[in-house]
């Protein structure tokens, strides 16, 4: 027993080393964010000695639009996440459980969407949204994210893995299709919903390109576009501390999400890998 425990402890050593290695860049970013920009311009080795400062963070919060951008990012990310979960669940259920003409063809068409990069459709989408007057609006930022072939695929596969007998039993008890979905099947897909929700939220939160060209007014910037706009030219040289503070600030909400949903994220990733 003692030998086994010792082996387990020894086994943890490389894990800890690798974890530390992965953590080092983040520690470096935080450390740089606490240094005056002028000092960093002459060399980053000054990070190991005083003075340190919170001025870079004060400069971020001093920008009156920052909290607006934070709110915009939250609205867009939550909107996209909710939309993707609803649409993917409905579509996944339909593909997995319902019989209708052309089902397999439509499913293949949805999967083809996985192979179409955003760059290929961005011009047409931009023009379409211009015609509809959707730029610089929340729907303009949320709607493109709702097209989620991966989500549909994931949920379809998940629904297919659930025994049909459960639906049949509920149907025999006079439950309607929506009731079966809502009361019986959806609770069983929570791990998949968590996986999809978390990945969708992260992806929407980090999105830069579409918000850059759709939300062109400062009051509609998302956090990614907003913090980038604050950078002066050559920020990596003349404003390195500020740049790093921005990185920390923009990453904090993600960290909070991770801390709160750590259990689900680990389960989701492990589940996705296992599946």
């Amino acid at each position: 027993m003692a030998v086994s425990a010792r082996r387990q402890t020894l086994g943890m050593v490389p894990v800890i080393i690798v974890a530390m290695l992965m953590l080092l860049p983040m520690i470096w970013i935080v450390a740089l964010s606490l240094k005056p920009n002028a000092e960093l311009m002459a060399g980053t080795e000054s990070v190991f000695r005083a003075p340190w400062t919170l001025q870079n963070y004060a400069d971020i919060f001093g920008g009156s639009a920052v909290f607006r951008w934070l709110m915009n990012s939250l609205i867009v990310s939550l909107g996209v996440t909710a939309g993707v979960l609803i649409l993917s669940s409905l579509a996944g259920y339909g593909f997995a459980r319902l019989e209708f003409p052309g089902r397999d063809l439509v499913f293949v068409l949805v999967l083809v969407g996985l192979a179409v990069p955003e760059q290929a459709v961005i011009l047409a989408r931009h023009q379409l949204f211009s015609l509809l007057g959707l730029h610089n609006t929340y729907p303009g930022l949320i709607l493109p994210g709702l097209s989620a072939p991966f989500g549909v695929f994931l949920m379809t596969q998940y629904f297919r893995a659930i025994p049909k007998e459960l639906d049949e039993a509920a149907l025999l008890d006079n439950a309607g299709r929506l009731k079966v979905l809502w009361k019986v099947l959806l609770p069983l897909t929570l791990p998949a919903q968590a996986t999809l929700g978390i990945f969708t939220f992260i992806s929407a939160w980090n999105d830069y390109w579409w918000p850059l060209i759709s939300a062109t007014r400062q009051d509609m910037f998302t956090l990614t576009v907003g913090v980038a706009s604050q950078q002066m030219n050559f920020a990596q040289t003349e404003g390195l501390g500020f740049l790093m503070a921005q990185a920390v600030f923009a990453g904090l909400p993600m960290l909070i999400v991770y801390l709160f949903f750590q259990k689900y994220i680990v389960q989701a990733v492990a589940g996705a890998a296992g599946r």
Partner: protein
Amino acid sequence: MRKLRQSAVAIVALLALGSCARGEPERTTITLQRFFGACEAQYGGSTDVETAEGECGIITTLINRFEAENPDIDVKVNVVFWPGYDQLTAQLAANDEPDLVIMHASVIPDYQARGLIDPIGAELKAAGVDPARFTEAARLGVTIDDQIWGLPFDTWAPLWHINMNLFRQAGLVQDGQPILPTSAQELLAQAEQFERATGKPYLVQISANEYASYARNLYTLMFQQGAAVFDRPDRIDLNNPQARAVLNLFRTIDDRGLTTKNQDYSAATAGFLNGDGGVLINGTWMVGTFDLESRTTGRPLSGGYAVRTYPQLFAGRAATFVDSHVWVMPRDAGRTDAERAAALRLLKFLADNDLQWARTGHLPAFQDIIDSPAFLALPHRSDLAFLATTGRLLRAGVRRQFSIETILGEESAAAIAGNKSVDQALIDGERRVNTLLANL
């Protein structure tokens, strides 16, 4: 009675509010889009332009002051990530363009050729900004087809930033002035003398992850030899002895170890600040930073910083490649006369305050400001003032200059590092640029 009193108070309050509302001037809102970063925390409420520092500080306080002096105009500032052209293009495609945008002079041809910006020369003159006051370099940067396409705000150029302490150690200072080469051979000789005396490379170059400096070296030294670089706006000419001479010179410098190698922008700047070499080739925007460093005790640059334009390394004419920051007015059929007038009033204000902007290190766009004692009194500016007449841009109408810079940088880097012959690099560069321009 009480009710009557309350009603009377309410009526008086309403009347007071009404009279206030009538007293408020009707405000015209215009949108100005710029890069240069955000510094609201420091300068958000300041109108004290004279004490503001840096590009961001000065432009922010300038706009604040304009609004304070012009209460009938509300300027909405849209700050975008440098250089902001993706956003501008998207805005133009969506008919949501700002009223004024900061744009590099080298980018103007791309927007002008597609009819996306308005010529404003006549309106500027009517507003009190006579284009005849522009420096030659600034005027060339905004002129296409004999029309003025924006208000030049400055002229910027790559410069030779010099560590005078190391130059002194190398015996390259005379009467307090740096001794700079007057030919390619002299450059090599002085660089070797410098290297022997200090043990450090003569040049500190930005040569990794950035191609602009390669292209700017090539342009400048080709101009010095009288080469046109572009014989037509849509055709570059690199298959000539002038281009070969430039690349061969930089290849020799590299081969002999007279320059730093593989340093990106940050590393080269830090290296120069730490005294790792004699000359950093970098832009006008660094003058203030290095000047401040030279006034700080205990630093490698303390009391020993000078800045000069490129030395004349080839027989020909004095020339340095320059570019400008320009305020342009995107074409907008929906812009009202009031908005247009407000935008022009703002342009006039910015022109009137060009001296303040010049404290960033950039050169003013107006010759009378360059000649003024106030400008010449700024640190090092008297050494740079003649850039206004020797500064040269690429031929008017050359499009895709940012992309061209990248192509020329890639090919130059390959030749200088020895990965390609100089001839092959020039052939490839010419082919790639001309293919790009032929397919617009």
